[in-house]
């Protein structure tokens, strides 16, 4: 578990610890917008998404 507020970078770290075999080449989106590593997650109801490399077009 992680405590809020936490940064997007800290969330990535927590995911890597919990799922060590998961590839790390994903982006994180917060409320449907790409987030920066330093962005803070404060709202417990935030919509978070892990975005694997996209292949549209």
């Amino acid at each position, binding site marked *: 578990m992680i405590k809020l507020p936490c940064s997007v970078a800290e969330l990535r770290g927590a995911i890597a610890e919990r799922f060590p075999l998961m590839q790390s080449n994903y982006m994180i989106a917060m409320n*449907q*917008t790409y987030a920066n590593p330093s962005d803070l997650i404060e709202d417990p109801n935030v919509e978070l998404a892990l975005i694997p*490399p*996209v292949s549209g*077009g």
Partner: protein
Amino acid sequence: MQKDTFHEIALLQELLDFSVVEDYVRSHSKGAHVFFSGTPRDMKDGQLVHSLFFEAYEPMALREMKHIRDRAMEVFQLEVAVIHHRLGDCALREHAVLVGVGAPHRAAAFEACMWIMDEIKSKVPIWKKETLANGSFWVTPHP
């Protein structure tokens, strides 16, 4: 397809209609019109591709597409820009993506169309699954 209301930004489960996009761009811009159609390749590493499937994180994909359109309108001084992307099953030879732009002069229209496609391919959360003879695979984009 899109008979009732035309949306400049759309994710569509049905066939994309080039003529509808063309009519819309032509009626909203005088000067240079550039159109791009992306269709699935029929070979993958020497294997025949049978079909394609597109999945999206739809609300964010639409937001990103709108953001790309708005940026292109501003940066390239466009009069109109349309981005339609297919979702779901897509047969070979069907349009996977259609982009249409209109600008007063051709240089801006060509550049904008190229830039919009580059942005779509790198940023819009849409994923492609290819079905080959030996199974279906999510496509890993080349960096």
